[in-house]
């Protein structure tokens, strides 16, 4: 490709653009007097083809610019990685601080968006255990989200228990489903595992849709109890037993939204804390080893079966927590909320963030969930810009936003001083 001149290359690109845009943009349908009529739009096509030509030429010329010394793109990338490592030190506390104070400063709509994003962060962190650490490609993560949501809704309706009493049960039930799914698919790897998990996600949704006597089918379940703060309810009155009444505040719907925000923030941080702790322990380390080489794991006496099951169960458990939160936040759930699109979005967050990176999940959620909301004023063009942004990002950072892996244990300074001596030996 580089053998062709930039001009010829740009011309070829323009030709392809012409072929694509001539029918798609160049012909507009009008509802005329005698049915639908076609109106040609040559100017629009010419403008697009011209833009493609100019852009392609610019890209080629930029690529062909003389490289500075021997540095090249490798060194530039290393510098970028170092800069990212530096920013990481204050990026995490900054993000956390913004997350904590945000509800006091932002509008209600922004807090709602914050809740949505934190839900996806939590789901992303949960799936990161399965996909990022253990390397098991799971396309049906939404199943556990649905199990958690329906578990909470059904248990709460049957027993009258509140959110906090039902939350552990939702997590445990989702984990049980994780193990149930895990058993038959343990022998599968990669693409095959992905297909089976995808099917599992759909099975759960279709069962929820058709088991009308239990789940209400497409009508869903409504009137799910809202969460309380140590028994204090969030209502529009300031009577006894309500949040506003206890703290002598004017009743406001914002209180509940803010409370929900902090609940999901807490749950997400719990997920993160558990994952980070597990990563530094034998279980987390063996998950990563499993991702690297399953056969070698077996040769070291590691039971691959149970290790995979623990990854499925822990990931599913956090998916279940997130599902219970979703149910209590919405007050209403139906199978429509648990489509394959959700699994795909969460998986995209994990992959885009960089497999196994906790910070990557947060950044990717900002892009994937925050991005489309930010571009909402651009109406129809927002999905175009969103798609373009994703393509550009995957071209620039093909292995995800955060690719560096932090070792789970370091030997320390004494050992790190020695490599210099070794390097000197190699040079000398």
């Amino acid at each position, binding site marked *: 490709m580089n053998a062709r001149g930039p001009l010829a290359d740009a011309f070829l690109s323009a030709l392809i653009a012409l072929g694509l845009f001539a029918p798609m943009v160049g012909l507009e349908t009008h509802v005329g007097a005698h049915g639908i009529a076609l109106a040609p739009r040559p100017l629009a096509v010419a403008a697009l083809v011209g833009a493609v030509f100019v852009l392609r030429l610019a890209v080629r010329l930029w690529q062909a610019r003389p490289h500075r010394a021997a540095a090249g793109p490798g060194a530039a990338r290393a510098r970028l990685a170092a800069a990212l490592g530096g920013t990481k030190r204050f990026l995490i506390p900054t993000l956390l601080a913004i997350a904590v104070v945000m509800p006091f400063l932002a509008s209600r709509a922004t807090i709602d968006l914050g809740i949505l994003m934190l839900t996806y962060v939590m789901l992303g962190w949960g799936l990161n255990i399965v996909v990022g650490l253990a390397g098991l490609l799971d396309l049906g993560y939404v199943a556990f989200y649905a199990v958690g949501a329906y578990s909470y809704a059904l248990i709460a309706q049957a027993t009258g228990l509140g959110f906090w009493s039902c939350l552990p049960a939702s997590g445990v039930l989702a984990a049980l489903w994780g193990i149930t799914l895990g058993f038959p698919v343990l022998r599968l790897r990669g693409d095959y595992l992905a297909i089976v998990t995808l099917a599992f996600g759909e099975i759960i949704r279709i069962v929820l849709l058709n088991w009308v006597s239990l789940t209400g089918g497409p009508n869903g379940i409504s009137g799910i109890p809202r969460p309380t703060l140590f028994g204090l309810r969030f209502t529009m009155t300031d009577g006894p037993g309500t949040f506003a009444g206890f703290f002598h505040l004017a009743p406001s719907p914002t209180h509940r939204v803010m409370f929900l925000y902090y609940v999901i923030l807490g749950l997400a941080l719990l997920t993160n804390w*558990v994952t980070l*702790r*597990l990563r530094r*322990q*034998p*279980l987390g*380390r*063996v998950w*990563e*080893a499993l*991702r*690297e*080489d399953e*056969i*070698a*794991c*077996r*040769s*070291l*006496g*590691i*039971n*691959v079966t149970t290790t995979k099951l*623990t990854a499925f169960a822990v990931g599913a458990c956090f998916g279940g927590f997130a599902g219970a939160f979703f149910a209590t936040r919405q007050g209403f759930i139906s199978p429509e909320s648990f489509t394959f699109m959700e699994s795909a979005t969460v998986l995209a967050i994990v992959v885009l963030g960089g497999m196994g990176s906790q910070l990557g999940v947060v950044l990717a959620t900002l892009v994937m969930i925050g991005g489309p909301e930010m571009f909402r004023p651009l109406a129809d063009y927002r999905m175009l810009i969103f798609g373009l942004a994703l393509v550009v990002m995957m071209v620039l950072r093909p292995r995800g936003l955060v690719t560096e*892996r932090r*070792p*789970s*244990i*370091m*030997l320390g300074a004494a*050992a*790190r001083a*020695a*490599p210099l*001596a*070794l390097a000197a030996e190699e040079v000398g």
Partner: protein
Amino acid sequence: MAAEDAMPLLAVRRLGMRFGGITALDDLSFTARRGEITAVIGPNGAGKTTAFNCITGFYRPSSGELSLTRPDGGSYALAKMPGHLIARRAGVARTFQNIRLFAGMTVLENLLVAQHIPLMAATGFGILAILGLGHYRRAERQAVEKAKSWLERIDLLARADDPAGSLPYGAQRRLEIARAMCVDPVLLCLDEPAAGLNPSETAELGALLLRIRAEGCSLLLIEHDMNVVMRISDHIVVLDRGRKISDGTPAEVRADPHVIAAYLGEDDESADDLAPEVVP
């Protein structure tokens, strides 16, 4: 070195392995004695790696028995054990012909994963350790110390925090052996450990293997490099086309006309005509 009365550690009896119509191993019997280095040699396709995979539980043999003597005098029937228990309970660790390290993880992490079983037992199913309870910290310190002692032995202490995949080839081979040794095996099975090493690395490898034997671990070794095999082995088993054609000390095997025939590609009839004197 090879004591005639050494205890048998691994007994392979009438081992057979068929893949569809292909017979990879046919009625193979040999023993590996405790405290010895037993080498399995033979031309390409002789069934050496198949035998290894049967012994280490990666294949289930079509016929025959594999028994490993337990310290208390009983024995493990390896052919009937689930794969991961062969390493965990019977103490048979192995390396691979094409190195299988956890390439993205650091050298130290590789050695800690090998000590997963004792470490996991100390974490109380992971729950106690998440909360910082239990004696996990002490167990981890001990595991790191053990890893460090192995890193010193294989001269990789300085690279402990580097990804295993970034090491030079020879170092990766040594690391894989150290990782297998962190399982505390009674029998270490090495599949072509000298493949791709330069002469000085091969010499170091020989010294390392002799040291492992001196510390009480028995070794079973597949190797093509005859210098290594003849120098360090106590006992050699020669395979050809799935059968054992010779078994004995290096000197005996070197003088066996069947072995020479197999390596030079002569057929069995002419092997009998070959005089032992022509052996280099």
